[in-house]
């Protein structure tokens, strides 16, 4: 998708006034977090598993070159193909070439954030193919021609009336008087429509939650079963993944799977966790004839060994998103990136560049909830701060903000002058504010007083009072 992160503030302002969105977000804010809490409480080893999950990803990243080569080798041994894509253009072309080589017309797609990153649907459509998203949420937003607003619940911003509207507009062959009042009715219709697509598709594209170096397998985790139909029925299965999805062994994958679903939706395990290894084997009655893995870099190799290295541990569970007070307030579209919330605010500048997305690392209260719930313990606030530092060093920082900080710093390291100035100002503010205890408005502080009263100071500063009392100074 096209990045729209530079409009964060306007997007957010709009989102705060969108009542439908706010209703959905309110539900999200209590739903996933409570379920995660319950799942974690049920598994005494959960915290220890998080430590191991972190260590596994750390080890893999430290030796990523080794594991990538091993993985490639194993995929080839089991009859599959590996394609390397350094950027989005590269990746799209590889996918299209594979489709073209088998004369494909229709393509089904399982949910894939790498697919979103590549905007693969758009590209294939331009080339005359018909890609169909099969994850229910992705299908809905594809019909509405909008980007996902959440990495595992892409249509979370929508109400059922939006879905009904999209279905009536698209499924014109169905009787207009049909009932689509309830989520059940909508699901029934989507299931029937998509069933035909699954069976007719020439190529199936899925993402991958993990690549396993030991076996050359890719792993998808879904609840609907759409990913499995996507990769089993067509003649060709293409997997889109990025370099950091690697783990060494099946056992390592098991550990990560134990923290993934619990962190994401609070499920003990997602409904379908499927390992794909090569194309269909000799005696297999079904399965694809071809198995292709497209491994995308798109800026990630630059993150290795750098400030945002640890972000590459991310397993895309969305726990940080679900728990973020800012995401809960404005939803995913405000971020203008396919990766919203805390993880997105670290990842988006790395992939698209900081100039395009400088609001994102700043739009955080640094409350630390994201790090608290991250299954692989990514220090997200620290990484947001590292982007802010980069921005401060050589990026765009509003001149007033830079000035304000410099002025503050100038006085702060000159305590005598600072205390003298503070004494006078607080005295004045204290007198003026005495009547109400606060100010409804105040010069230069509209950002605060627009929606909050500004508490009045007591009048004298502590330093002043301490001196008056003759308190100990050394």
């Amino acid at each position, binding site marked *: 998708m096209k990045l729209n992160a530079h409009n964060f503030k306007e997007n957010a302002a709009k989102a705060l006034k969108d009542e439908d969105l706010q209703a959905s977000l309110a539900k999200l804010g209590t739903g996933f977090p409570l379920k995660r809490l319950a799942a974690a409480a049920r598994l005494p080893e959960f915290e220890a598993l998080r430590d191991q999950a972190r260590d596994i990803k750390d080890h893999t990243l430290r030796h990523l*070159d080794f594991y990538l080569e091993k993985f490639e080798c194993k995929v080839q041994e089991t009859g599959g193909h590996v394609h390397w894509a350094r950027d989005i253009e590269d990746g799209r072309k590889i996918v299209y070439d594979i489709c073209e080589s088998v004369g494909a017309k229709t393509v089904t797609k399982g949910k894939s954030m790498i697919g979103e990153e590549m905007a693969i649907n758009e590209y294939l459509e331009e080339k005359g193919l018909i890609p169909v998203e099969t994850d*229910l949420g992705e299908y809905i937003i594809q019909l509405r021609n909008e980007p996902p607003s959440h990495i595992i619940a892409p*249509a979370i911003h929508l109400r059922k009336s939006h879905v009904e509207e999209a279905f009536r507009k698209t499924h014109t062959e169905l009787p207009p008087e049909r009932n689509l009042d309830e989520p059940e009715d909508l699901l029934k219709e989507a299931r029937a429509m998509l069933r035909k697509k699954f*069976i007719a598709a020439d190529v199936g594209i899925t993402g991958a939650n993990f690549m396993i170096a030991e076996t050359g397998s890719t792993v998808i985790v879904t609840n609907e079963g759409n990913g499995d139909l996507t990769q089993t029925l067509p003649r060709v299965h293409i997997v889109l993944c990025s*370099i950091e999805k690697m783990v060494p062994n099946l056992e390592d994958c098991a550990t990560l799977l134990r923290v993934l679903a619990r962190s994401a939706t609070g499920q003990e395990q997602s409904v379908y966790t*499927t390992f794909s*290894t090569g194309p269909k084997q000799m005696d297999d*009655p079904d399965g694809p004839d071809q198995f292709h893995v497209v*491994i995308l870099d798109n800026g990630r190799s630059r993150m290795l060994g*750098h400030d945002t290295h640890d972000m590459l541990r991310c397993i895309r569970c969305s726990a940080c998103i679900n728990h973020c007070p800012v995401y809960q307030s404005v939803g995913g579209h405000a971020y203008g990136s396919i990766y919203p919330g805390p993880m997105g605010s670290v990842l988006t500048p790395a992939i698209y560049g900081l100039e395009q997305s400088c609001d994102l690392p700043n739009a955080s209260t640094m409350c630390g909830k994201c790090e608290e719930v991250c299954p692989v313990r990514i220090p997200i606030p620290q990484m947001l701060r590292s982007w802010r530092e980069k921005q401060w060093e050589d990026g765009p920082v509003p001149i007033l903000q830079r000035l304000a900080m410099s002025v503050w710093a100038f006085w702060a390291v000159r305590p005598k002058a600072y205390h003298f100035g503070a004494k006078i100002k607080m005295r004045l503010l204290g007198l003026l504010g005495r009547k109400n205890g606060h100010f409804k408005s105040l010069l230069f502080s509209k950002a605060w007083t627009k929606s909050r009263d500004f508490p009045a100071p007591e009048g004298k500063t502590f330093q002043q009072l301490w001196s008056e009392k003759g308190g100990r100074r050394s």
Partner: protein
Amino acid sequence: MSSRDYILGRVRWSLGRGAFERDSCQQLEARLNTPQSNLIPKRGQGDAKAQLSLFVKMATEVNATVSRLKALENVPKAVAKYLKEQELDATVRLADHPELQKLDWSKLDASTGFSTGDDLVGVVMAYAGAAETGSLALRSGADSPTTLNFLPDYHIVVLKAADLVGDYEAVYARLRRESNKTDFMPRTLSWVTGPSRTADIEQTLLLGAHGPRKLHILVIEDNGEAS
């Protein structure tokens, strides 16, 4: 430069810059070729009886239904009974699995093979079950088509209690043990934990999104060896 060389080169360069401690190739090969289990939750580590009751509890929690049978021979009867309860015709599509094929299906309208999407009910054998989350391990193969696990509305899975283990790792160990080659993975290995579901519309949980609406598990407690 090929994209492959470009990416691997960038990865090496970046890792070099990070000055990470690196294990030797020998250590890495050893880690890869002699896989070690990480921490395995205690909950699945009870005896066979405890594992079975945990499996049933966990599977039931995620909306699967479970029947415990004394012998494999009872499967056709149990399937017929289940279909009747669900008010379905007695028509089933069977996996071409020797243990299923040797049973007497004469009371039902049974056909064999993979599915093309016209089957309402599929019956398959599980490769294994993992007690810790009530999950079934289903592997593709001549005796186990993947389409039967995802296309039919009703997914009936036969699990021999002897194939029930505590955790996922035990299943991976068995896969490695039973294969004499290094490529021990089937094309498809699926962990199935309950029937298909979605919460994509207003976060309302609905069963039967694209895969099966119902998952019915028949656990054979005497392993089908005698009856």
